[in-house]
């Protein structure tokens, strides 16, 4: 065991998840390997449909009925969540890992008061009386910047930003060790987004939970997460210290994402990756990014690459040609390179 492993709070090993759709299987997650350290802030990025929500739902244990976990281990503090019985599993939820969901409007039950929904989470895991739990909920509201007097409001009486804050308050309720945040601010305007992230990061610094942040905002990840994970079509293609990946991405897809955000200091146009994600049907071979990759060679189509460490700081990449990447970084910044080489 290395030092890295000991600090790890959540670890996932060779996880495969399928969805059954019309008797066909869709390979939603393949060979996921991930280790989250205590108190870490991890940014998880990748284009729509690459399996980010599926991964978080697997960790929370709320996959829909047509999903199947084929292999893998999801361990929290060393104990495997996937082999727990229902009641054990129920107890770990929210108390140890909580989640801030993609849409706060739909996540709150419209017919119950918001305060009562927080109290419900507290009481599902403790013997607190309703009065105690309410007092606790009021404190949580204060922490996220909602007046506690509004505990008895219904979700429709809250603005989008307040609802999102309420959902964050709910996620903090039992002081979990890990909080998963699935695009927590998608429906909000930029100013409110910034405020909410600022608050969330402050709370993280105070309370020390690990935060896994799923977002399409790469700039935010680069700015605020020390670790970053890049997913593509159900696999992790690159992960490691954010500054390393941002400075010199080792996977062509990460490079594409990296140069897709405008950079005010560099004199270049943001690029866009041509093509669209591949069909996820089970049984395809080769690298899943091959058909959009400017560097793809015969081997990439034939043989799927393994996730390999590139250094001892936890930087890992899944690409046959990652060693050549530094030589091509300049080219990746130009749209023409992507268009000409992708077939």
């Amino acid at each position, binding site marked *: 065991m290395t030092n890295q492993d000991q600090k790890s709070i959540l670890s996932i090993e060779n996880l495969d998840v399928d969805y059954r759709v019309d008797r066909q299987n869709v390979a939603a997650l393949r060979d996921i390997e991930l280790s989250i350290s205590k108190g870490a802030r991890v940014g998880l990025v990748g284009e729509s449909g690459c399996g980010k929500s599926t991964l978080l739902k697997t960790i929370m244990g709320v996959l829909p009925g047509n999903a199947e976990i084929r292999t893998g281990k999801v361990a929290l503090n060393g104990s495997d969540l996937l082999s727990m019985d229902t009641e054990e599993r129920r107890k770990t*939820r929210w108390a140890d890992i909580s989640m801030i969901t993609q849409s706060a409007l739909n*996540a709150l039950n419209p*017919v119950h008061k918001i305060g009562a929904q927080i109290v419900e989470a507290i009481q599902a*895991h403790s013997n607190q009386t309703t009065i105690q739990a309410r007092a606790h909920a009021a404190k949580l509201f204060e922490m996220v910047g909602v007046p506690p007097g509004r505990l008895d409001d*219904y979700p*429709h009486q809250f603005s989008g930003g307040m609802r999102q804050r309420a959902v964050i308050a709910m996620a903090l309720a039992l002081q979990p060790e890990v909080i998963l945040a699935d695009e927590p601010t998608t429906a909000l305007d930029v100013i409110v987004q910034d405020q909410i992230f600022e608050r969330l990061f402050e709370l993280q610094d105070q309370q020390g939970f690990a935060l896994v942040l799923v977002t399409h905002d790469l700039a935010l990840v680069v700015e605020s997460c020390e670790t970053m994970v890049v997913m593509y079509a159900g696999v992790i293609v690159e992960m490691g210290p954010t500054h390393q990946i941002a400075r010199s991405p080792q996977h062509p897809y990460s490079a594409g994402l990296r140069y897709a955000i405008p950079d005010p200091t560099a004199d270049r146009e943001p690029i866009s990756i041509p093509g669209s994600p591949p069909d996820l049907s089970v049984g395809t071979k080769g690298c899943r990014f091959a058909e959009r990759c400017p560097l793809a060679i015969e081997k990439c189509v034939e043989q799927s690459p393994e996730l390999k460490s590139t250094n001892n700081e936890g930087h890992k990449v899944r690409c046959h040609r990652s060693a050549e990447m530094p030589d091509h970084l300049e080219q990746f910044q130009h749209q023409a390179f992507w268009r000409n080489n992708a077939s």
Partner: protein
Amino acid sequence: MRQFLIKRTWHALLTLFVMSTVMFFMFRLLPGDPTATVISPALYPKAQEALKAQFGLDKPLFEQYLIYLRNLVLLDFGISFHTLRPVAGEIGNRLINTLVLILPSMIVAYAIGAFVGAMVAWKRGSKLEGALVLIATALQSTPVFWLGMLAILFFSIRLDLFPVGHIVSPGMFPEANLQMYLSLDFLHHLALPFMVNVAYQFCFPFLLMRSTMLSTIGEDYIELARMKGVPEKRILYHHAMRNSMLPLATTLPMILGWAVAGSVVIETVFSWPGLGLLMVEAVGRSDYPVVQAAFLLIAVLTVAGTLFADVLYGILDPRITYQ
């Protein structure tokens, strides 16, 4: 909330006023002389006129209308052409008979239908679910009179388990009183029409609740409740079923209409001396005062039911504002 109630009560009263006015003029302007059954054209003209004066029919139409309104307020519905007794008394008894049959059976049908519908949706894909959906769909498209007759044929005539009809055995209770409604004989008569109505009215809430639940189960707030570690039982009752009740509550006024229509048919098939049967009889005998009073009563019940449904919906769904 209070203002809403006051406003809606006013609306309800206004609706009833319009209804009774329409009914007054409808009966009087319809072709055919409603008095013909009582005031026979074969009588001497003098006698005819005397009778007309006795019923107040010699006065101008508008004055008759005012008298009619005053009488309504005083709950005086006139005298039955058939029994020559006050209509109010005739109807009161019949109303109770209808309520003891229809009200409990509707409540039981809706409670069971909604609960079973929710449960099969929750444990989706069971054999029971498939079977019940099939049965409910079939039952729902079966005419209730036919269902009633089949039940009589099978349970009463073939198996001899229940009486063929009526509310008590002939001669047992000359007067309808509390003792009658508490007697075993009454319950024995009640059982079959009760079950037929339950079987028939069960289908709609069952099917509606099931399909609502199926979509509720996929909602994000159910997933969040599960993530929160809320026990499954509580998710089922407090979130899934609770929210799935809303569409059922919106259909409550419609259901009242069905209850009335159903009661007419069931009472006729089972010779149950309720309001529905009274109406059928009164129409057959051209007993206009009774028909009119029965219609009015049904209007009152429906308007009151709608008001109740509105208030109930407001309580169930906080998103409804009382404006």
